[in-house]
């Protein structure tokens, strides 16, 4: 990946506007993520967090604005060029999105088998390594349908990391998990982020998770980032919107979308 002219920024979203079905989802969103930083974006359901995340990996193109990944403007790149950028990005989907026609091993090794000339033996070593990293050694031959929700997420995490990306995106990593499994996932994300020195963006509405993972928390409301700071700053923010969100109150300036 070209590294010049990135100003130390791994991800830069510049004035992103996105309309969906006659609704303004993002209204000039700006977000900058430095190399090696872990940013958590919080916001209510339907606030456009997922849409924002999908812009970073080029699944959605903005109607207005620019997306820069490590200094490369991917906004108007053709799919083939974006794919080159995507090889440095891993994404963990909310429900895991494991390929259910394949075994766990085939899932984790997908990008290695598709994009490298690695030998079968080498690939299976790498798969074993990553499954070990997420605490699921030895389940290569299972099918995704045989896994619990927490296991699916961890296998999906192994799949996202197997190609050793520089950027990892987490879409609601703890949603749908019990509190203990949620903490397992949070610890895993934190540990791997530090160990692999990746840049990461996580979207969530789980504040425990946000505080644990984040170097910096940003809040998305009404299509824009309205506040950003360290976890302590956000938890004690005077911004009325942020305060209402972190205190979990239905009274306040945030209108409930219908």
């Amino acid at each position, binding site marked *: 990946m070209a590294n010049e002219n990135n100003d130390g920024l791994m991800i830069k979203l510049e004035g992103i506007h996105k309309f969906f079905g006659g609704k303004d989802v993002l209204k000039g969103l700006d977000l900058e993520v430095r190399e090696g930083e872990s940013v958590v974006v919080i916001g209510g359901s339907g606030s456009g967090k997922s849409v924002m995340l*999908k812009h970073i*990996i080029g*699944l959605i193109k903005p109607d207005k604005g620019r997306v820069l990944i490590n200094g490369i403007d991917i906004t108007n790149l053709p*799919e083939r060029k974006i*794919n*080159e950028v*995507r*090889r440095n*990005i*891993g*994404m963990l*989907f*909310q*429900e895991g*999105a*494991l*390929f*259910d*026609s394949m075994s766990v091993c085939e899932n984790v090794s*997908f*990008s290695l088998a*598709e*994009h490298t000339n690695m030998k079968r033996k080498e690939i299976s070593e790498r798969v074993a390594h990553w499954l070990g990293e997420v605490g699921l050694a030895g389940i290569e031959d299972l099918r995704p349908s045989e896994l619990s929700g927490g296991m699916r997420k961890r296998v999906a995490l192994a*799949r*996202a990391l197997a*190609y050793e990306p520089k950027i990892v995106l987490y879409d609601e990593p703890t949603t749908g998990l019990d509190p203990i499994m949620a903490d397992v996932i949070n610890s895993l994300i934190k540990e791997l982020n530090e160990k692999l020195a990746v840049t990461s963006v996580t979207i969530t509405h789980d504040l425990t998770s946000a505080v644990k993972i984040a170097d910096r928390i940003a809040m998305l409301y009404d299509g824009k980032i309205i506040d950003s700071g360290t976890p302590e700053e956000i938890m004690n923010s005077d911004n009325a919107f942020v305060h209402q969100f972190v205190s979990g109150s239905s009274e306040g300036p945030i209108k409930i979308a219908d």
Partner: protein
Amino acid sequence: MRLIRDSLSAVGRLVVNFFEDAGMAVTLWFKATALVFIPPWHFRIIFKQCEQIGLRSLPVVVVSATFVGMVFGLHSFSGFSRFGASGLAPTVVALAITKEMGPVITALMVAGRAGAAMTAEIGSMKVTEQIEALRTLATNPIKYLAVPRLIAGTLMLPVLTIFADAFGLFGGYLVSTSMMGMSSQIYISATWDALYASDIFGGLLKATFFGFFIALICTHYGFKTKGGAEGVGLSTTKSVVVSSMTVLISDFFLTRLL
């Protein structure tokens, strides 16, 4: 007045939907064609699809073709013997099977079996974010999912049709000789005289087109699926109805042209 307006707008919607789907399917065809020539080639997946569409459909195709041949034998024998021309029955059976019934029965069976499976599989991948996951793993879903199915469908239909032709002729033979008392030698030599390579190849060529149409329509509806399990059901139904109708309608035009 209201009834007229409502029915007109319903017709209008149908027409618009038809052209929208046709346009999307043609776009899919162009994209897939462009991607056929770019590596990596997924030979393993193409092979697997050939097995899925070809080998696994063989029993259904063979059984249906045999019975269609038998019914045809019954009808033509009893019909022609009314004016003392029962000797023509083998000729009519041979022509009808190789030119028409073989390719069409095969196509309808494959549409109902393999086509439905294609739409259901791609459709459920779509609603569980697996298609997006493919894209995040720097893999083009059209190349990975549509191209192998299009190749396999186009290759396998003529192969299956050869079997359908053979078993259809056998069905006619069985009925005429065992139930209608026709001499086996006479039946075989009459069939042999009636068979022309051009008729058989014409039928196989039609089958090739049918295979392509079925795969294109069924993958298109798969990719277009939205709205959870219900959506998968809807688009599977649609793909079977539309691909079966396309087979029957295009059959007329292909017969006229070829």
